[in-house]
């Protein structure tokens, strides 16, 4: 297949499908599933090309920067595109199966167009190398995400509102920084700016604004206040994509900028500050996850905590002892976390359907009523999230730890180890009560009735994602060399 066409399809296909799903609600789920199934081979073509020729760039409309907008295809972009496609496809399968259990018609009619807009926005985001284009895309992703959260109704409306305010403020701060950069260098393209940017006052002010905006959008400690209610109260399929990919998108932009135009300013205070925020997120998010009573809230707080690990890449890469290992570890973490988190939310959705609530004490035992596949998914995803070998989570944390040890950065190494213990703590809490209960009646709080049967595709979607999280660890060496071939540090 033509490489240019393949790249264009990645961004254009979901948007086209969104228009179709809006005009013809009946074909909405076919449009979503079709998009996912078509994107898989398209992405495979792009990955093979990247392995063959290394990273490349496509100038839209044939106009080179600074005039036109560019697409950047490299290891970082492709990894996140693959993650988006896998999670969005699995969640779509889950949602199609779940659709048989629901009757809420407005939600059903507008779910797929919103979903496809979100998907198209994410794909466009991971391709784009233009800062203003990214602003437009960020608005698109926020708008779609807010509508999808609000679709859950009830208390989710308040959560959606807070998320919307936070994310709109974040976009505006981001745009302010972009305006400053444009005024200074007359360019919006990331790679062009990387060549021109110097360490001076305006660039620093722009970096502060952009970073603040993105920290707010990425729910990075201490600006994470909006995330847990929004992700905890949305429908499970929506939470899966939000937690696995949407917050990662803001983090992705931080990476692009701090290892691009702002790279000269990173060593020293900025790297240490970002690392400190990461460490605080790991510990604070983890402790709060320990205190939650609802399964989905535990998983939502865990997102705050796990993204903190990824932030450690800034001080570790800046320490310059094993920077590639830190990058590879962070990339692996984003991938493994996204897959595991998607799986956990989908599995939590299954259990909430079956037992009528996701309160940890109302969920019945694994052997009752066919909830075993969902429990297996939770166990596998938890194994990867904690970092048990041979999962992707293990490899990610191991690489990060290696880099920390090589740099003799003991505090960061301690954070990684401590964070792992806390992760183990809250994930064990999820498993503890239901495992103790041997029958429906012996659950700590007896269920309202027998577990509701659900379509098998729902837990299987979760299970597939969990298996992918484990598998990413098994193929770690292959992934590591693929990362290197695709231009690791962007």
């Amino acid at each position, binding site marked *: 297949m*033509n490489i*240019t*066409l393949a*790249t*264009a399809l990645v961004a*254009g296909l979901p*948007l*086209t499908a*969104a*228009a179709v799903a*809006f*005009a*013809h*609600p009946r074909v909405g789920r076919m449009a979503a599933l079709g998009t996912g199934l078509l994107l898989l081979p398209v992405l495979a073509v792009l990955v093979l090309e990247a392995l063959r020729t290394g990273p490349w760039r*496509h*100038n*839209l*409309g*044939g*106009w080179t920067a*600074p*005039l*036109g*907008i560019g697409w950047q295809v490299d290891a970082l972009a492709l990894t996140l595109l693959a993650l988006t496609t896998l999670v969005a496809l699995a969640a779509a399968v889950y949602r199609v199966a779940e659709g048989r259990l629901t009757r809420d*018609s*407005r*939600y059903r*009619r*507008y*779910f797929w*167009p*919103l979903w496809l*807009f979100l998907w*198209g926005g994410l794909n*466009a985001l991971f391709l784009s190398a233009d800062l*203003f*284009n990214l602003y*437009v*895309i960020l*608005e*698109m992703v926020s*708008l*779609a995400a*807010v*509508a999808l959260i*609000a*679709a859950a109704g009830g208390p989710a409306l308040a959560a959606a509102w807070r998320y919307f305010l936070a994310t709109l403020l974040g976009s505006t701060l981001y745009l302010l920084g972009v305006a*400053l950069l444009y*005024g*200074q*260098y*007359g360019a919006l393209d990331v790679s062009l700016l990387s060549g021109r940017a110097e360490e001076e*006052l*305006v660039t620093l*002010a722009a970096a502060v604004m952009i970073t603040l905006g993105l920290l707010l959008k990425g729910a990075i400690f201490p600006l994470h206040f909006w995330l847990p209610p929004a992700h905890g109260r949305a429908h499970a399929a929506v939470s899966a994509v939000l937690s696995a990919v949407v917050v990662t998108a803001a983090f992705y932009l931080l990476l692009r900028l701090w290892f691009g135009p702002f790279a000269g300013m990173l060593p020293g205070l900025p790297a240490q500050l970002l690392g400190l925020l990461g460490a605080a997120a790991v510990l604070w998010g983890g402790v709060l996850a320990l205190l939650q009573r609802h399964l989905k809230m535990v998983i939502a707080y865990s997102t705050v905590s796990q993204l903190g690990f990824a932030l450690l890449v800034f001080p570790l890469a800046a320490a310059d002892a094993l920077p590639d290992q830190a990058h590879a570890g962070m990339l692996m973490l984003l991938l493994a976390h996204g897959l595991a988190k998607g799986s956990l939310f989908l599995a939590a959705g299954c259990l909430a359907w079956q037992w009528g609530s996701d309160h940890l004490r109302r969920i019945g035992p694994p052997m009752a009523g066919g909830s075993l596949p969902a429990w297996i998914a939770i166990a596998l995803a938890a194994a990867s999230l904690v970092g048990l070998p041979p999962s992707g989570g293990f490899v990610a944390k191991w690489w990060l730890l290696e880099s920390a040890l090589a740099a003799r950065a003991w505090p960061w190494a301690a954070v990684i180890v401590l964070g792992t213990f806390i992760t183990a703590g809250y994930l064990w809490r999820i498993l503890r009560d239901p495992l103790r209960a041997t029958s429906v009646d012996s659950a700590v709080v007896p269920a309202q009735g027998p577990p509701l049967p659900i379509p098998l595709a729902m837990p299987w979607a979760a299970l597939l994602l969990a298996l992918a999280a484990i598998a990413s660890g098994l193929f770690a060496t292959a992934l590591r060399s693929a990362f290197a071939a695709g231009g690791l540090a962007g």
Partner: protein
Amino acid sequence: MGAPGLAFDGILGAALLWTAWQAIHAAGLFRAVVSFMVFGLLMALAWVRLEAPDIALAEAAIGAGITGALLLSALGRLDWEAGRATDECLRGRDRAFWVPTGLLLLAGLGGAAWLLPAPGLGEPVAAELGRSGVENPVTAVLLNFRAWDTLLEIAILLLGVVALWSLGPTPWPSSPELVSPALPMLGRVLFPAFVLVSAYLLWRGSHAPGGAFPAGAVMGAGGVLMLMAGARPWLSGDVHGPWRWALALGMVAMLGVAFAVMTGGHGFFEYPVELAGRLILLLELAAGLSIALLLFALYLGGEPPADWETRRPA
């Protein structure tokens, strides 16, 4: 610029600051919203002073017009009395924080912005304008150099409509007692004028300020006026019949052209130079029409019914 110009700018600046402050802090939400609309109109003047007539047109039609109508309609749906009773803005709170922070920001950001060399892209745009297919540089940037931005922007308008409709049914026709008796006639007289102005703006856009966005905005504003005048929107039918395609027209046309040019061996959105002018005109027509309809659909504030009489959901 001269002294009169400077005096005008000074008065305009002061008025902008005052209306912006009033838009946030005026007692009573109604006054706040009206202040915001005045702020939008004054901004249009500021854009003219800054040599940005395209933005002035868009701001007047969208920033003041459509946004103002949206705000007023939202206000009408809120519990008005309760709103007034609990009107509160903790203005005095945290003054110890806000005054120094404000001064610091003013000095820091103002200073930083003052230092900006602002190299700009005027020269490269002018150099490539000949190959863009249009004479107006802003249109060239919007529909050729950065057409992908514009596609996404229209996608966001459509997404906004989908998001609003997903939240619930439209409240229209909500409060007929608000409509003045003169409005229906006025609306019918004015609507053709709105259509004419939009057509003119669209035609002008290829060589002078104007183009799809102001044109669409003006037409959308005309539609909103008709709705206020008591007209029944045509947007109805099961799954809204062909209307949903009309709403998606702008985005679909842009995607279609972007992919279609690839058959000739070009890249995504890479118009052949000899066809660029005609393709851009086509896109402007499609975008203008669908922007008008999308703004109108946003104003409905929710999903229109399949039948306006029975209000059966679509």
